């Protein structure tokens, strides 16, 4: 721990954290929606995989957004991922 305490202070703050949490939930929702759009079958078959994957997706996106250098990187990741999902939902 003594080595860790000598490292430069990190810039993670409330804005970074809140953006990561909100972004993780939003992206997980979008990702689940696009997964449902990619699947075929009746309503239950399309919705169930997204439903079960949602908590894991939130955590995955949470870690991904958390490990960003600054706020710009977080925003960029959210926007690009949202665009990708929007394309999948729109064109499938």
């Amino acid at each position, binding site marked *: 721990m003594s080595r860790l305490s000598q*490292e430069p202070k990190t810039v*993670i703050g409330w804005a970074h954290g809140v953006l990561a949490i909100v972004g993780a939930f939003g992206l997980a929702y979008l990702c689940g929606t696009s997964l449902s759009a990619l699947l075929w079958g009746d309503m239950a078959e399309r919705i169930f995989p997204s439903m079960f994957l*949602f908590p894991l997706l939130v955590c995955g996106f949470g870690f991904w957004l958390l490990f960003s250098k600054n706020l710009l990187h977080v925003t960029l990741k959210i926007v690009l991922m949202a665009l990708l999902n929007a394309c999948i939902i729109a064109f499938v």
Partner: protein
Amino acid sequence: MLAKSLRFKFLHRSHTIIGLVVLFLFYMSTYFGTLTFFMPYLKVWESPSRHFVPLAEHAFNIDLLLGELLEKQHLLSSKPVDITLPSFRDPLLKLSSESQNSLYLNPLTNEVIKLSKEENLISTFFNELHTGVVIPLIGMPLMGIMSIGIVFLTLGGFGSTFISTRRRRDQKRAGKAGGFRGIKSWGLGSFPTRLCLLAREPFWA
């Protein structure tokens, strides 16, 4: 991607803050959840109609009365009738049918019991505290979000343990650290899991 040295710090800080927020609500849920173990007994205690000593050997004489009761309560139709036998959850015998009021009988005397004024206020209140319904509007979704937070904390906890152990191993190889710290951190990390496994052990047999 973030520098390796900062990953542990980010994980550690997010783990602390999210852990504090999540555990505040989970403590409430777990505390009142332990009381819901006693839910059937509380329900029986709350209802005066169930205050009788059940027989050790049940020999239901409901067959003698069933036809008469079904006819009297207009339950004789094409719809199936459910008969729920007395148990520790509910010592009364229950007859129910679709779109009909359920009928409760005392299994000792076959007496039809009116339950219109009996409400399970206390047990319902504890259950609402457990599920978070007492928090208006956002209670139950909040509990769902907290569950996702627990998944995050679990994965993050394992991640940070893995990072710190690997860091310690590297330091040890470079001759900068003492012997047992890595083992100690793994031991602490796996302690809740071992506790859960230990608690579940009696149920495996």
